[in-house]
């Protein structure tokens, strides 16, 4: 259960597609206890700029060999620095942070958009005995390297792209109701852009299917101390995305 902060050694750091990278590091103290939906917080330099850590979901984790897999898109200075990490280098890695998904249900449906597909990889693997179906959305074909990653884990993969370059043309939330009509799912797990999560939550509520969403917020501490990351909860109270989340039951969030 204990969070820790270790110098993780880089095993691999390679381009998957376009500006998306896969980073594999050795961090046994974290890999030994991490659960799907949790994240790590990386310090990328010994210097004072960029100052803050960067949160990344744990996309995969092998307790046995102590490795974590992270999948990241280069969007700014921090992620650009990440691309410089070479095998053999170390990176200051804090984790595992956050609460993770609740593994429940027998017929899970995963819904992921963009980089929201990263944490769902580990979740899908955790469901191996009762394979999950996945509905994935991306901007275009180039972005959809994800199917390979889920192949062999999720027998049913549904795809949408904004431009229709592969799969259905449109958004995951356009396809979701039809999917729920056709098949009986007893739990939905969603991760992706805020509007997508909001849509999934509404649809899940309509179909009365329990639904967990993984939120993203700007974070400083990652451990519930700074209150940078809180979001409005339905109870009237605010939730800390870093410790109460990032995974919430959809009805806990005031959308």
């Amino acid at each position, binding site marked *: 259960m204990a969070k820790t902060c270790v110098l993780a050694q880089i095993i691999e750091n390679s381009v998957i597609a376009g500006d998306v990278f896969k980073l594999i590091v050795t961090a046994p103290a974290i890999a030994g206890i991490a659960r799907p939906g949790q994240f790590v917080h990386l310090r990328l330099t010994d210097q004072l*700029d960029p100052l803050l850590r960067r949160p990344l979901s744990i996309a995969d984790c092998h307790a046995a060999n102590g490795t974590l897999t992270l999948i990241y898109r280069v969007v700014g200075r921090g992620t650009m620095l990440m691309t410089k990490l070479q095998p053999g280098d170390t990176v200051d890695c804090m984790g595992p942070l956050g609460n993770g998904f609740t593994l429940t249900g027998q017929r899970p449906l995963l819904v992921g958009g963009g980089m929201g597909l990263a944490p769902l990889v580990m979740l899908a693997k955790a469901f191996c005995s009762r394979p999950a179906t996945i509905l994935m959305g991306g901007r275009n074909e180039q972005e959809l390297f994800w199917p390979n990653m889920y192949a062999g884990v999720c027998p049913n993969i549904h795809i949408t792209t904004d431009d229709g370059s592969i799969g259905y043309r449109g958004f995951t939330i356009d396809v979701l109701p039809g999917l729920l009509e056709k098949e009986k799912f007893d739990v939905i797990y969603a991760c992706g852009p805020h509007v997508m999560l909001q849509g999934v939550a509404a649809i899940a509520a309509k179909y009365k299917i329990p639904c967990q969403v993984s939120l993203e917020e700007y974070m*400083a501490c*990652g451990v519930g101390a700074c209150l940078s990351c809180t979001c409005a909860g339905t109870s009237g109270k*605010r939730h800390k995305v870093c410790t109460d989340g990032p995974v919430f039951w959809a009805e806990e969030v005031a959308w």
Partner: protein
Amino acid sequence: MVSNVNDMLAVNIAGIKMKTPVMTASGTFGFGLEYSDFVDLNQVGAIVVKGTTLAPKAGNSGRRMAETPAGMLNSIGLENPGVEEFIHTIMPRLAKYDVPVIVNISGNTVEEYGQLAARLDKTGVAGLEVNISCPNVKQGGIAFGTCPDSAAQVVREVKAKTTLPVIAKLSPNVTDIALMAKAVEAAGADAISLINTLLGMAIDIHTWRPVLGNIVGGFSGPAVKPVALRMVWQAANAVKVPVIGMGGIMTAADAVEFMLAGASAVAVGTANFVNPYAAVEVAGGIRDYLTERGLNQVSQLVGKVNCG
């Protein structure tokens, strides 16, 4: 007078006995418990908890944090569970540790500060830090902290309502920090802490909107250290009460600079986010520094900068 490792770092700030001179700054260490996986709270000088108000407070909406060069902006807006929840739920958990707990209090009116002070008396807390310098709330906050008279009024009211040591936390957003320090000292403050955050801003050039939901925010981290150190030096030269220095401290070397400038104790803030072990590592580094120089008590550094 045996000088062992503990004695070496021990300080007494206005009656608050600390094992080390390294406290944690309000709002950057939660209630301490959040960092207990990383830091043995018994090894922290003192925990200054998040700014606490009479009623629970939801804080500001919109984005609350932005990174800046070697620093950060926050506009939390004093989100906190309120003083009752603190006393009933949080303090009992903190009481299990052997560490002084200081409550950072914030009111909309002078009277509210007094009520908070009265309520926290005899609850096991070691002291009060009067936050007259929060830049992130509309009422109270910084308004009290940029005018010597109102600052003094708040401190007098708090002193009247509590038997606890009272630390006045000053805002750096003023022309004359020495004037502010003297005003709160004259009003009875037992110690002075500074700096709170500078007032800063960032604009999103894609959306043409302020990055923070609250438009402006509190600016902290190593970037602000030169200003903080200068103000601590000015304030310490202006008053007799002990000064607690903070603002950008990342390492023991930074802490030593603040103590040489006149701080009797220091607090680490933003550093906790970067290095969750900061509070304890900075203290360890100060001990090493003293040892290397053959000093046996951290007080031997205080105010020793030689400007001659």
